[in-house]
């Protein structure tokens, strides 16, 4: 066996080898989060209120209704979806990168029985948890404003974990290949920002040209979140509901495997 094959056999494997220890990494991030909860809980309260007031009620005055739905109720699920995307994506890009590169937290962890796969999986689960925390807080606000229907909207809570996990896995792939923290601005501006605007968030996909619509539905992760979330908050199942859920499941699995593989490649030298 050559040296290279030896190395591949030990570290170049495809499926991550995760142990229960991943939860300890998750727990570490949880502890830090609640140590500074005062700063962590304010944004998810304030952000949706601002959007609701400015866009929902302000712009909504001119828009009126979309497909027979008041505009503010149309964008409420989009705000939830964006919050899931942002909280998980930014946690597993900038924050994970800081822990990996600047604070050397990953190095400290892998000097214990934890493996890199455990560390990355813990980070991903934490990204998903952050999505759950933020969108749940936001859901409370939206319920307070009476712009989402109950009880189906409560399914947003478990859904936000799965949606967050998908964005965490995608984010971790960028973190694994970025040359530095500044280069993470590229996926933020070229991937996250366009999705924020063109995923059926603030206007329905149906007004886009048909090929663009199809591309959006086929490829954009946020589109799937909006489809599912809107079905839940309006209690009105979209014909694409199941498709989007399956899409999220498949993409999460692919990017989970890919992110752990890329991270092993980056960190095991």
């Amino acid at each position, binding site marked *: 066996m050559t*040296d290279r094959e030896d190395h591949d056999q030990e570290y170049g494997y495809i499926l991550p080898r995760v142990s229960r220890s991943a939860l*300890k990494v998750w727990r570490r991030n949880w*502890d830090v989060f609640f140590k500074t909860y005062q700063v962590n809980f304010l944004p998810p309260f304030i952000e949706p209120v601002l959007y609701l007031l400015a866009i929902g009620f302000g712009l909504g005055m001119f828009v009126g209704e979309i497909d027979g739905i008041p505009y503010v109720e149309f964008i409420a699920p989009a705000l939830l979806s964006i919050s899931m995307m942002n909280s998980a994506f930014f946690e597993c890009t900038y924050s994970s990168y800081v822990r990996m590169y600047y604070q050397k*937290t990953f190095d400290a962890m892998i*000097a*214990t*029985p934890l*493996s890199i796969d455990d560390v990355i999986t813990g980070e991903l689960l934490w990204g998903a948890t952050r999505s759950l925390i933020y969108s749940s807080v936001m859901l409370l606000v939206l319920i307070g404003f009476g712009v989402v229907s109950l009880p189906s909207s409560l399914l947003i809570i478990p859904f936000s974990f799965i949606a967050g996990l998908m964005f965490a896995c995608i984010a971790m792939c960028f973190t694994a290949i970025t040359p530095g923290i500044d280069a993470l601005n590229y996926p933020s501006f070229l991937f996250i920002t366009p999705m924020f605007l063109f995923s059926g968030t603030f206007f329905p996909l149906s007004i886009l040209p048909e090929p663009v619509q199809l591309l959006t539905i086929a490829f954009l992760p946020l589109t799937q979140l909006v489809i599912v979330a809107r079905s839940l908050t309006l209690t009105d199942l979209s014909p694409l509901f199941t498709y989007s859920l399956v899409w999220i499941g498949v993409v999460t699995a692919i990017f989970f495997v890919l992110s752990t593989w890329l991270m092993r490649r980056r960190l095991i030298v």
Partner: protein
Amino acid sequence: MADYPVIEAERLTKRFGTLTAVDGISFSVSRGDVFGFLGPNGAGKTTTMKMIQCISPRTAGALTVLGMDTSTHPREIKAELGVLPQETNLDPEFTCRENLLAYARYFDIPVSEARKRADELLSFVQLQEKQDVPIDKLSGGMKRRLLLARALINDPKLLILDEPTIGLDPQGRHLIWEKLKALQAAGNTIVLTTHYLEEAERLCNRLVIMDRGKILVEGSPADLISRYVGNDIVEAEHTPEVVSCLEEMGARFEIYGDMVQVLTDQPREVAKRLFETCNPGHVFARRASLEDVFLKLTGRVLRD
């Protein structure tokens, strides 16, 4: 405990692309050893440490730690290791005590046991009063001590210290040495790398000097000194007179810049003869140190 070496490396090799960082080294560390890795920058010390820690896979050769192969039993090996890293990687968001408790969790140490050990270790490294202080309020010396305490949280069978006193002031350095001496006296096995030869001379009972990925020499500090430079050194100013004088005497000497070093077992006689016959300016006789061995073997050219 079974009778195997704590670390056994045979023709251990690590290549990064075309660069061979560790080039087929063999060594063995026994229980109770304080084993030092010395060498200039880029000698392969840290790479060797990383292979022992199971975080960097070897390219070739064999490596066992506590009788287990590093490539097949990383989790089991790492559970028994205590590591003091070269770069501080304490958790900045936690206090001293929280750092120890969070780390204990990674080793599956039950909470009550972890609390007990954290208390003991904080007092061992003299940080009881700082236990609730966040990390960024600590001095460099305190951080190193806390890292040492963290490395001991799992009661390790092997301690790996990568530059344990790097960047510390003399007080901080002496305090760490004191703690390491205490650990050594308690029978711990310690492997350390250092640039400070005085540190190696004080702490290590065995050491290797590495350069360019290879082990140049191995032995106890005293043994290496007498083997490679003799017991004493006489230094004199580098003048043509002194050089011709030494040549006449048939002495072993080397010239470094404006200084001549004579390696000898009779420092008094050499110094006396220099004074009497060669007009040497000033002459200085001293014990040979590990630093002399190190410079003799690895040269005086700067490495980066």
